[in-house]
């Protein structure tokens, strides 16, 4: 499948990655090549095949929804690029 320039811009927006106008054509070529390459999978008959998300046969366990830590605000905020009064700081999002 051809990933045209319009689709490249849509994917970039969904990916939250800013791309320059000058890069669009190169990325379009790159992605088209890779996507065409993976379309090889269409040769495989997968009718009635169950998709696999986890290669392990081990069942993922459930646990009780209990509080097992807390009071670690300092640790959580330690690497924050911008913080104030125990909160992460972000630009204004509500008008």
């Amino acid at each position, binding site marked *: 499948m051809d*990933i045209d320039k319009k*689709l*490249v811009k849509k*994917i*970039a927006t*969904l*990916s*939250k*990655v*800013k*791309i320059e106008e000058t890069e669009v054509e190169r*990325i379009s070529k*790159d*992605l088209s*090549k*890779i*996507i065409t*390459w*993976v*379309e*090889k*999978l*269409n*040769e*495989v008959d*997968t009718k009635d*095949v*169950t*998709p*696999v*998300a*986890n*290669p*392990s*046969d*081990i069942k*993922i*366990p459930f*646990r009780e929804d209990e509080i097992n830590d807390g009071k*670690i605000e300092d*640790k*959580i905020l*330690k*690497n*924050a*690029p*911008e913080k104030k009064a125990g909160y*992460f700081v*972000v*630009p*204004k*999002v509500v008008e």
Partner: protein
Amino acid sequence: MDLKNISLEECLKLLKKKKISSKELTAFYLKEAEANKDLNAYISLNSDNAIKSAEESDKRISTNTSRPLEGIPIAIKDLFCTKDISTTAASKMLNDFKPTYESTVTQNLWDAGAILLGKTNLDEFAMGSSNETSFFGASINPWSKDNKKYVPGGSSGGSAAAVSGNIAIAATGTDTGGSIRQPASYCGIVGLKPTYGRCSRWGIVSFASSLDQAGPMTKTVNDAALMLDVMAGYDKKDSTSANLEKTNFYKNLKNNKKLRIGIPKQYKNDQLNDEIIKLWDLGIEYFKKNNCEIVEIDLPHTEYALATYYIISSAEASSNLARYDGIRYGLRNNSENINDLYEQTRSDGFGEEVKRRIMIGTYVLSAGYYDAYYLKAQKVRSKIINDFKKAFEKVDIIFTPTAPSDAFEEGSKIDDPIQMYLNDVFTVPVSLAGLPAISIPMGLSSNDLPLGFQIIGKSFDEDSVLSAAKIIEENANFKKEVG
């Protein structure tokens, strides 16, 4: 005493007999690491703390309270979170990141007395097969020669270069599609990817969660077993961690195990060069000599593994890397507008290959394309897993080359993503099936560069993998010294 070409197992003996102190050993490796900075194997060294830890280990040794890896300095791939110590994933995004917690695998190593020597270089977020996508520049293969720079492989290229270049006794790596095995092959060392679920993924910077697995990179098979015994174990903080009995890989190692060895006919394709086929046949002879039975097996969906892998791993990566938003940790490029902040931060913080994979992953998961790509790949993955299940009804292990070539020159493949992806053609199917596999050095190519071979086992049968590797190791007698 030659501390340079020394195995972990030998070090443990010397420490125990008090022929050497951990402080001397650690200081020696720190000095060697400094002296070999041109390899660019380390992103950071843990110089001050390592010596302090070594002194503590020496106290324990003198009071006979040694733990299994007491006093052994090791290198850790800079993808494992280490508490209060810079953990970068070789990305600008995490250049200033100091985790407030320790990964389970590294904690297991410290609890066993190992000492952190430094954090090793890798492809950015473990995405690459040459180490060239690192924000800190590529690590160099210690086998490089004739004034040419060869890649150490990737993504665990720094760990492989450190062990091969004798600036670490052993190292950890992580493997998503071959990232332990391929660099081990390129650098002439042993690299073991355990069964998915054997080692906890908690605290390892995530790439593709249904594939990521930590493992040891060492000079010998015995060392790999010693390391894995400590690294492995159930961890309730990783929901896919296997709750099994305590392992005893080192004790269970045999060099005369009678095994049924599978040779997949699909791996012997036209593109494979003669010298690899010759070495492969030699390995088969080693097994025969050891009374192993050789069986040809069929893995019919092999040719679809790479495409399946690139859809699934990129999809999982695009989801996992959504967390890098410039708000909670990592790089932030400020803006008045929140969307702009996200986009500026991610464009600046991620390199080309990471962005490419995020975009592919986003595309294959997006509305209208999900079924055609992602769901399709999950179904083909199921067929690949079934191929292995059927093959393992007839054999105990599978023997193949690790990679289709020896190490290549820096810069020769970086502009062609698909050529780069083809390096993983033999390692990726194993990853999709979650099976354990080791790369073991067999010999040198006509270009005098190492070539490794891969031994694949059944789920949680690392014992057979290690024992088979032992047969190859003892027969091949690969020269450990570089150059």
